[in-house]
């Protein structure tokens, strides 16, 4: 079983020299005593004998009450189960809090990753804007390359373009924003004749529907 060992707790130096001098002697008074100025602080157990919570026998005797063994045992059992139940509930709540925190951290980490990738595209667009004396053609080329970067980025992330142009209209992937009579469009009824805004999918999930004009 793996356990983590922390760098030791340092006791006060004077105690150390005391120990070094009187090897084996019982603790001396100047060993820092438990803080007593706080009320309700109690120190249990003796320094010599391993301290353990009082045994049940001791409890019964000191109470000076003669009790039926079974009754006393029944009470303990109830108390024990109650404590167990509460601890279990607390554990569930703490577990839930941890999971939530982990989930949030994962989400942020992934967002950062994605955003960093986009920064490259921003860089390139800035260069396009700063390009002095560029004619329309070279600007077009530059922007085109930047666009390619963007497309590759999306591709790497699993984003795919939604087939729309010429396809039968499918509301699962397309959003109809207008219609044209199919005769004038020279198309089959229910075919997508124009893609007003391209759509994208992430595997089986719809990222953004393609906005289309449909022939009716």
């Amino acid at each position, binding site marked *: 079983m*793996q*356990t*983590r*060992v*922390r*760098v*030791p*707790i*340092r*006791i006060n130096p004077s*105690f*150390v020299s005391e*120990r*070094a001098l009187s*090897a084996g002697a019982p*603790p001396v008074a100047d*060993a*820092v*005593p*438990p*803080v007593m100025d*706080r009320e*309700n*602080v*109690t*120190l*249990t*157990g003796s*320094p*010599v004998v*391993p*301290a353990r919570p009082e045994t049940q026998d001791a409890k019964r005797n000191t109470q000076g009450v003669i009790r039926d063994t079974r009754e006393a045992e029944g009470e303990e059992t109830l108390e024990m189960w109650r*404590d167990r139940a*509460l*601890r279990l*509930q*607390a554990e*569930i*709540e*703490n577990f*839930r*809090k941890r999971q939530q925190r982990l989930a949030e951290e994962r989400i942020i980490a992934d967002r950062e990753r994605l955003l960093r990738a986009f920064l490259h595209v921003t860089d390139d667009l800035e260069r396009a804007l700063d390009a002095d004396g560029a004619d329309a053609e070279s600007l077009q080329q530059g922007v085109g390359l930047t666009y390619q970067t963007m497309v590759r980025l999306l591709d790497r992330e699993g984003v795919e373009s939604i087939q729309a142009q010429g396809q039968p*209209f499918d*509301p*699962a992937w*397309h*959003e*109809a*924003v*207008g*219609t044209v009579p199919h005769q004038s469009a020279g198309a089959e009824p*229910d075919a997508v004749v124009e893609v*007003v*805004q391209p759509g994208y999918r992430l595997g089986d*999930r*719809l990222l953004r529907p393609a*906005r289309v*004009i*449909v022939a*009716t």
Partner: protein
Amino acid sequence: MSKIIGIDLGTTNSVVSVMEGGEPIVIPTVEGGRLCPSVVAFTKSGERLVGQVAKRQAVVNPENTIFSVKRLIGRRYDDPEVGKARRVLPYEIVRGPAGDAQVHIPQTGKEYTPQEISAMILRKLKQDAEAYLGEPVTRAVITVPAYFNDSQRQATKDAGQIAGLDVLRIINEPTASSLAYGMDKKKDETILVFDLGGGTFDVSILDVGEGVVEVQSTSGDTFLGGDDWDQRIVDYIADEFKKDQGIDLCQDRQALQRLKEAAEKAKVELSTVLETEINLPFITADSTGPKHLQMKLARAKLEQLTEDLVQRCRGPFEQALEDANLTANDLDEVVLVGGATRMPMIQELVRELTGGKEPHKGVNPDEVVAVGAAIQAGVLAGEVKDVLLLDVTPLTLGVETLGGVMTPLIERNTTIPVRKSEIFSTAEDGQTAVTIHVLQGERPVAADNNSLGMFNLDGIPPAPRGIPQVEVTFDIDANGILNVSAQDKATGKEQQITITATTNLSKEEVERLVQDAKRHEAEDRRRKELIEARNTADALIYQMEKTLRDLGDKVSASDRGRIEQISENLKQAKEGDDAARIRQLIEQLQQASYAIGQQVYAQQQAAGGPQAGPAGPPPGYSAGPPPGGDEEVVEGEFHEV
């Protein structure tokens, strides 16, 4: 027993929520959204679509796509509201055999009651809930507007039944909203619920006392909502563009679509900033080339454009007060519902109307009603009663460790009862006792935190530093009493301390301490790093001295000299404050130690026989990887045993 879900069956959108572990959770649709459009469509291929997918084909199938059916449910055909609806809805509304309003679907040639249409929506919500919960769902609480009459309520209940849900209760939307804010715990108070949704506006005044919520009055405008604000922005942008470029964007379907989206986005942004930009490059083109739209929109301008819409909210508010025989002063609490209430102009209006009262708005306004329904569902399921509210420990608890830092054992906001143990060890060779100093607080340096108590555990058999194992256990019971124990694993000796009153700090005090820690975060971190650097230096120096002793002659005089020199420098550096320098020297010392390690192994191989190699890190402690090894060095205080 299956879970009871809470459903907000809205005019434009529906939301479903359920209690999970004592908290209301909004259940997302299988498409991934938290809102489900209240739209049902009958397609050419005989399919029935519900929700977002139905909405997407509305334009190609207007006569068979039913939305806003809530405007019809439980109403008679002759109802004036139905008349209003007929004028704006693109599908056919007919008179049913009993005089009720029904819809005619050309696609199937049949009539459907609004209950049947709503049932299709409810069925989808039920299925999505089952997918999320992983179990069947058969019972629900559904909300309706406070002004719904018996017929409308019964029809809603019937819709649930058709969908396969046993509707345990129909509750009023404003009542659900107040439940979401825990208003039912109030004694004898008057609550105003101001609900401005996408398409409808409702004002309700409720009376709450002894767990009973009563609706005193309601009023509203069934054709006023956030969508109207969007439209104003669209009109404004289009007008400006026309003035500027002479092109009417409303004629261009593509442009109009983008405009609508940009308008909604701008509206949302202006709820948090005073000015936003609307950027639509390549919005259209004419013979002279592509045209771009770029304009700024200030919140003040938006408010000017929509002032009349805001004014339309006053009337119903006044009416509701009058009907309840109350004045604005009689209102104790105000609850905001509906996305449009996020707009500052609406919040200001509400403040003005209620004489300056601050409205409750912690719950997502689009989800408030569903959340309230889930809470009611939880009460009916007996869940809310049974959930025991456990305390949390408000501040971190831990012990003081080497160098005067606080090592946390139980983090703040951990639910109690809880028990945590960790193993610690000694700092010096031959140390036979440890001091357990129990601390409470958020700062890394022990002295900056609250001391709760202290005790010693002695009788630890003398051993090199880092060898003994002392298990320290923090146990907080359900009453908040902390028991700290320390046990020496070798001898079994144990000491213990009991501390009561660890959770008795007021919220303000706790908050102050947390803020304190945040403020000092940077400097505290530096201090802690310095302490850790010193600790590591200590351990490494000790380690190197031991190694040199053990290796004896195997180390050349020059190497030994070099190492001793670096150690000396490190010893000096760690008395100072320059953590970076200390780390630098640690690195140097480590490098030097690898070098002699390599050397010694080379010698061994040359000698051919097994020799005592450099003493590896004593079991239980290492300041650096064993020469040639690749064990991870953990800087600072700890390592794996």
